[in-house]
């Protein structure tokens, strides 16, 4: 099936209906296997079992960043190629990316409690994730403010691109800000080499998270397409009354 076929929302809907159950099933399977492997992974000699929060925390961060990546590609699709599904993809990705970022923040905070003795430390990595979360909130606020999808799509695309350009700069600034104020006693995750007994479950969990992301993303895109159809049908109803 060529990409151009997918431009047709109806085709896309049939495809989603066919793919979604498989995708959801695969997600559940990989999650089950991943959690099994996580349970088998060794405890940290200092942190004990709490280290296992990492298996949620790290994939959460990755997927949070990937969410913005999806939005950036979608933004290019909206602005450059004017692909009819691009805006739908971008809009659907925003709350999901925000949710993964939120998971990363919450787990980071819970992990920090036994490690630092407090729920929150302004450590460079965690702070960068927080800033990403703030950017996501701005994006959600933008979608929330405009009811008309035609009006919000361009604005959201521009904001996504501006964010994509700015994220590295923000990351750099936060790192610099953090080292300026004496680096807090942060435990560096991993270091030079991660043992395979940790790395393999981590990668499996990352795969599970990625599958979950796309399952949710496809479902959200389908919902958004249907929502827009309902909207245009109701507008037609108003016109022909």
């Amino acid at each position, binding site marked *: 099936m060529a990409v151009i076929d997918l431009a047709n929302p109806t085709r896309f809907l049939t495809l989603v209906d066919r793919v979604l159950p498989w995708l959801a099933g695969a997600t559940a399977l990989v999650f089950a296997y991943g959690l099994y492997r996580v349970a088998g992974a060794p405890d940290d000699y200092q942190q004990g079992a709490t280290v296992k929060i990492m298996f949620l925390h790290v994939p959460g961060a990755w997927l949070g960043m990937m969410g913005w990546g999806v939005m950036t590609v979608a933004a290019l699709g909206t602005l450059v190629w004017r692909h009819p599904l691009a805006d739908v993809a971008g809009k659907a990705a925003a709350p999901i990316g925000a949710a993964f970022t939120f998971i990363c923040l919450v787990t980071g905070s819970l992990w920090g409690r036994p490690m630092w003795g407090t729920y929150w430390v302004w450590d460079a990595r965690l702070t960068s994730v927080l800033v990403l979360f703030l950017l996501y909130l701005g994006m959600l606020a933008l979608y929330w403010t405009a*009811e008309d999808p035609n009006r919000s799509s361009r604005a959201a695309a521009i904001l996504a691109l501006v964010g994509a350009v700015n994220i590295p700069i923000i990351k750099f600034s936060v790192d610099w800000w953090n080292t300026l104020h004496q680096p807090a006693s942060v435990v560096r995750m991993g270091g030079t080499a991660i043992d395979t007994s940790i790395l393999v479950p981590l990668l499996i969990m990352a795969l599970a998270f990625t599958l979950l992301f796309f399952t949710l993303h496809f479902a959200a895109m389908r919902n958004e397409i249907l929502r827009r159809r309902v909207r245009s049908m*109701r*507008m037609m*109803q*108003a*016109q022909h*009354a």
Partner: protein
Amino acid sequence: MRTDLIDLRLAGKDLACERGGRLVFSGLNFSVSGGEALVVTGRNGAGKSSLLRLIAGLLRKAGGQLGITGGDDEATVGEQSHYLGHLDAVKPSLSVGENLQFWATYLGAPRGAPIGPALEAVDLAQLSDLPAAYLSAGQRRRLSIARLVAVARPVWLLDEPTSALDSASQDRLAELMRKHRASGGMIVAAAHGPIGLDEPRELKLGVMG
């Protein structure tokens, strides 16, 4: 026919209006009784809209007296009037029904009175659940007019009521105005052309200079 409204009389004596330091009109006298309609005419800037807003209590009068007799003595003129201005007072994010229901409750429709008949009267009943954002200008205008039907108030103050209305809607409005007068209500309207009132009296503004 509601006889209790027949001996109603809205009268202004020696009214003056000032806007932004400019005297719009002064020494204006008029009176309308139940069942009557008064059409206010005049060139642009003569103060037609200002007079309506003044009667509604939305503009302070610079002089003179304004009063309504034979109605509810407790209520002000504004509280006994409906004002249909250039703006429709319709919230786009509420549904058509929610918009009307709110104004009906707020402006004092009897508790539990359904809004269906009022929507029916302006032919919007089947759009009741739609967000008002989807309405055209004419439909929003009709929703605004539905308010006059949903809440019974003796005085209707209509500022260019037929603007944005197609001819079918104009006919419907004419019918509503006829019913309102037949039940003893009165109408003061600002208009440039005919708006479908039977035998209206005319008040020409701006002739005294």
